[in-house]
């Protein structure tokens, strides 16, 4: 069943229910005012502070470190080099070796004798204040012998220069999925060969530029080693995984470690990491026996917190002349940066199942080579693998439509899974449980005014207007709600994908909910409160959601991959249901009725056919007092549940973008953005809107603004927000959003993830629109971000008759230093 929002409103949802209400987020006041426990706000008695000395070179041998001046600096307690702790510092973990023969360089938190990216930590200052630590950091005198650096992804893949010479190769792992081998489809090479004779073959190469997650709160860690346990506060998405890995790497008993992620100011995947800074802070605190804090600067964050994306995508799509796709072959190069970080190698693998998207392709092959370079390591960034896949397929479907001279929706409709075909097993082997691409598309076109804008586009083309109009389509889907543990096991991931919850009934009738899904801005406290309020029939305000402290919510797998609601929320439902089941015999006993005659409805246990009943709060108090409980019944309603999903879930949507392109300057301006998403049932529409609007801007930013650029010595040129262009509200327009509803069948709430949807969907819609605006001039691609200069050059090149060379298919190796001569450093002037 699929309903539009309007239709749903007409069905008049029960106003007594919390689920579906536009609840404003209960956590926002403290988060927005900052009157809360950000990690950097913590000050402990006797606390020491760290500053990091980082390598200015991308690849160099450390020949000497003179730390005497730094050690003599006021209030410096200790100066630590990699050599000082070489035997005890351990190595940072890689939790997802994607192949058994993956080449994985050692990853010491402090470089010992060689640095492999600009920004790597070489020495650590421990001082009584952060300012004194920073002052002393300037005084560490380090001699380096610079080595050739592997910077360009394609060249690195050819092993021209080695990022880690001792490994003998930059190639870390090669991972393939082939539908013929998997038994999920045919032979892709045969399909392509056949299409070369009697069909159509579209070949393209796309660049997924490197991005920086740029979360609002820079990373911060405090470690207190005093007392029986070692406590770490950290600005992380993954307190539970961090606790486990701290124990695994350092040998400290897991039971002696407590990790707290207090309020965390955003992550976008960028805090799905165990960092050198965390391990160093942990190590130093244990060495000095005092609390220690490290908070990175924004410059350090941009340089050394993990980056995202960074792929070359070579794509071959074969189709019959009527637009029916017969095969899709993907060949990826993925830039890991200097190390294989926590799940960095697995990010492209998460995309492997999504290149076929919403389509019924008979044959599919995915090949990925992960490559080491001397740049900051890459890992999860909002969408992690799925935006890359979605970009590739949605861009090339537009190319197919252009080749055939048909509307982009025509090729999509011809190839997509029809709503009556769900559940549907894809050529990548996933079972999509529900969806309705027809309904979402119809609604999106209506919101957008598709036919009117197409008519306007034609008028402007015919008139040869200086500002042309383009329309971009993205009919995305994604797999989220990470993840069925068995599937993760089959992909050699190092952990499961379940989530844990506890529901505690307090004697006063209030409810404490403990979740292992640790929020970093998503609004868990509000959405989970709504779920529990409905389930237990208590007031929304009476529910307190606790998370992010391994001593409080002792078990969990944290927050990423749009999993919190669909996995964590389901665990909460199951725990709440257990509370009800535990309360029933107590209610029956107190009401002097048989358990079989007890009904639970809207927070009240009642005896069937009578007006006798007790509220949940009354049962809670009676259970606490335990004066009069049935024999053999424990005096507790508290319940735990751990939920392991049986499947991913598959939000989808149709996104439409209209871009105006000034053919004289290349300037691109968004005219309209409309989308209809299907994320199943919605707990809190306001939070969903927030996720979608923010997600859309983040995806649009990849299309238009953001790119991490290194110069040819391996220095990050976009090392501040002067050059790494984040959009603000001034750069965006208001989006027209609606949703259709195909409830997920794999959780009782019928919900699907929404945290990454906007980001995954929007990037190709924008670039498709930019290209569409100037395709009649001969442009077939503009590399991201679509800067005015790139658009202008693409138009000029096309007008110059060099159509075959317009970026895309025959793009030369990306020279990362292009255009960097004569750069003015805005931050180095002074007068």
């Amino acid at each position, binding site marked *: 069943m699929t309903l539009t929002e309007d239709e749903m409103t007409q069905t008049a949802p029960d106003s007594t229910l919390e689920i579906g209400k536009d609840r404003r987020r209960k956590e926002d006041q403290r988060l927005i005012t900052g009157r809360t426990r950000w990690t950097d706000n913590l000050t402990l008695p006797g606390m020491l502070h760290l500053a990091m000395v980082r390598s200015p070179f991308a690849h160099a041998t450390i020949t000497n470190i003179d730390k005497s001046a730094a050690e003599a600096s006021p209030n410096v307690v200790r100066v630590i080099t990699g050599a000082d702790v070489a035997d005890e510092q351990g190595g940072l973990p890689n939790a997802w070796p994607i192949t058994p023969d993956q080449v994985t360089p050692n990853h010491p938190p402090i470089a010992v004798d060689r640095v492999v990216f600009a920004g790597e930590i070489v020495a650590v200052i421990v001082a009584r204040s952060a300012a004194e630590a920073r002052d002393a950091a300037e005084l560490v005198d380090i001699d380096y012998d610079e080595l050739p650096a592997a910077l360009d992804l394609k060249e690195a893949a050819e092993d021209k220069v080695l990022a880690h010479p001792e490994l003998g190769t930059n190639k870390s792992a090669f991972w393939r999925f082939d539908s013929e081998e998997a038994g999920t489809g045919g032979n892709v090479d045969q399909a392509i060969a056949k299409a070369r004779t009697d069909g159509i073959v579209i070949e393209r190469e796309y660049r997924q530029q490197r991005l920086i997650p740029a979360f609002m709160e820079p990373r911060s860690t405090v470690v207190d080693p005093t007392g029986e346990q070692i406590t770490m506060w950290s600005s992380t998405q993954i307190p539970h995984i961090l606790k486990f890995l701290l124990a695994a790497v350092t040998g400290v008993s897991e039971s002696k470690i407590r990790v707290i992620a207090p309020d965390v100011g955003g992550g976008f995947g960028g805090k799905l990491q165990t960092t050198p800074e965390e391990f160093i802070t942990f190590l130093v605190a244990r060495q000095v026996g005092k609390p220690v804090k490290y908070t990175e600067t924004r410059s350090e964050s941009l340089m050394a917190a993990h980056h995202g994306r960074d792929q070359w995508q070579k794509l071959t799509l074969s189709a019959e002349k009527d637009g029916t796709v017969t095969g899709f072959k993907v060949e990826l190069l993925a830039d890991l940066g200097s190390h294989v970080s926590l799940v960095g190698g697995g990010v492209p693998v998460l995309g492997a199942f999504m290149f076929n998207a919403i389509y019924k392709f008979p044959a599919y092959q995915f090949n990925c080579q992960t490559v080491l370079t001397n740049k900051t390591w890459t890992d999860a960034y909002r969408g992690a693998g799925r935006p890359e896949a979605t970009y590739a397929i949605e861009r090339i479907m537009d190319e197919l439509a252009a080749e055939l001279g048909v509307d982009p929706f025509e090729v999509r409709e011809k190839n997509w899974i029809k709503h009556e075909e769900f559940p549907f097993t894809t050529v990548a082997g996933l079972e999509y449980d529900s969806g309705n691409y027809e309904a979402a598309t119809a609604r999106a076109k209506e919101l957008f005014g598709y036919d009117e804008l197409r008519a306007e586009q034609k008028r402007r083309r015919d008139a040869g207007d200086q500002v042309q109009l383009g329309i971009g389509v993205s009919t995305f889907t994604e797999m989220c709600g990470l993840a069925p543990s068995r599937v993760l096991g089959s992909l050699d991931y190092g952990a499961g994908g379940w989530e844990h919850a506890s529901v505690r009934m307090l004697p006063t009738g209030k409810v404490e909910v403990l979740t292992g899904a640790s929020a970093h801005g998503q609004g868990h406290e509000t959405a989970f409160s709504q779920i529990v309020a409905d389930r237990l029939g208590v007031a929304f305000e009476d529910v307190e959601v606790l998370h992010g402290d391994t001593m409080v919510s002792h078990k969990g797998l944290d927050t990423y991959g749009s999993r919190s609601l669909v996995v964590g929320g389901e665990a909460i439902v199951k725990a709440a249901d257990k509370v009800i089941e535990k309360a029933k015999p107590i209610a029956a006993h107190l009401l002097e009725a048989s358990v079989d005659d007890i009904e639970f409805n809207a927070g009240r246990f009642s005896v069937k056919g009578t007006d006798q009943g007790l509220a949940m709060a009354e049962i809670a108090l009676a259970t606490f007092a335990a004066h009069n409980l049935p024999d053999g019944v424990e005096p507790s309603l508290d319940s735990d549940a751990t939920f392991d999903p049986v499947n991913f879930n598959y939000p989808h949507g149709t996104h439409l973008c209209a871009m105006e392109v000034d053919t004289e300057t290349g300037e691109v301006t968004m005219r309209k953005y409309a989308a209809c998403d299907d994320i199943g049932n919605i707990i809190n529409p306001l939070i969903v809107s927030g996720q979608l609007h923010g997600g859309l801007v983040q995806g649009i930013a990849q299309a238009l603004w953001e790119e991490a650029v290194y110069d040819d010595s391996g220095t990050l040129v976009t090392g501040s927000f002067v050059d790494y262009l984040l959009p603000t509200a001034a750069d965006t327009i208001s989006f027209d959003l609606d949703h259709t509803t195909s409830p997920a069948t794999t959780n009782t709430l019928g919900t699907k993830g929404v945290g990454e949807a906007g980001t995954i969907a929007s990037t190709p819609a924008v670039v498709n629109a930019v290209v569409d605006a100037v395709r009649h001039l001969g442009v077939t691609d503009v590399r991201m971000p679509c800067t005015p200069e790139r658009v202008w050059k693409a138009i000029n090149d096309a007008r110059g008759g060099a159509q075959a060379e317009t970026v895309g298919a025959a793009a030369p190796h990306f020279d990362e230093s292009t255009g960097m001569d004569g750069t*003015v450093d805005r*931050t180095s002037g*002074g007068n």
Partner: protein
Amino acid sequence: MIPAPFDYLAPTTVEEALAALGQHGDDAKILAGGQSLLPVLRMRLNAPEVVIDLGKIHSLRGIRDDGDALVIGAMTQHSVVEHDPLVAEHATLISKAVEHLADHQIRHRGTFGGALAHADPAGDLGAPALALEAQFVIAGPAGTRTVAADDFFVDLFETAIGEDEILTEIRVPKHTGWGATYEKFVRVAHQWPIVAVAATVRVEGGTIAEARIGLTNMGSTPLRARAVEAALVGQPATEDAVRAAAAHAAEGTNPPSDLNGEAAYRAHLATVLVRRAVLSAAGTT
């Protein structure tokens, strides 16, 4: 983001400030709002021993009418200039440029004179100051002197202000009744312009009687597009005439190449933006 240690002085008069500057010389930096200086200090790209904050010198704030000129105190915040009716009426070009300078927060902290003294060729105020032929009043140990805009901007981040001197006010000749447009080309709203054009023209009976055009980020200093100005005078304010004149926009410029565009692209942008700015200032579009 912690600066190296420095001493902080907050004089309340220009004389005190000059004395402090004379005493500390090279070791001192002037703080005039801090929107450029503070990031430099916090990123430890510079480490002066003394910072002299002009923020307490009230005589340096404010805008006054001085007959044929407006006088803008060097420490007047951008937000004050932005909303000042005198500026809007007599130096419209400055109003238009300040309106889109950086963002609200910066416009409330940053100062008119501070930005001009910083002399970033990508700053939004240099080109309007050139186009309006502003005069820069500079105080030093020997008294004050006045420098014409043409002589004020020396090189990248370098002005005619001596090491022992302080910019106190900017005299802007009134351009009452002139049309004005600041055409700023950016990728995101808060960034420095890739190229911007400050154009102000006086139109008489459909003919351009006078035209002044400043260019932002087309060289190591803000520049004046004199060839365009000369070509415009006496021409009708029409698309064709202005297009022909604007073709000279990049003459004598030396634009930078960076992530936002190579020099050749900036040169192209200059011709387009000059045309658009002049037509808009002349009321043709």
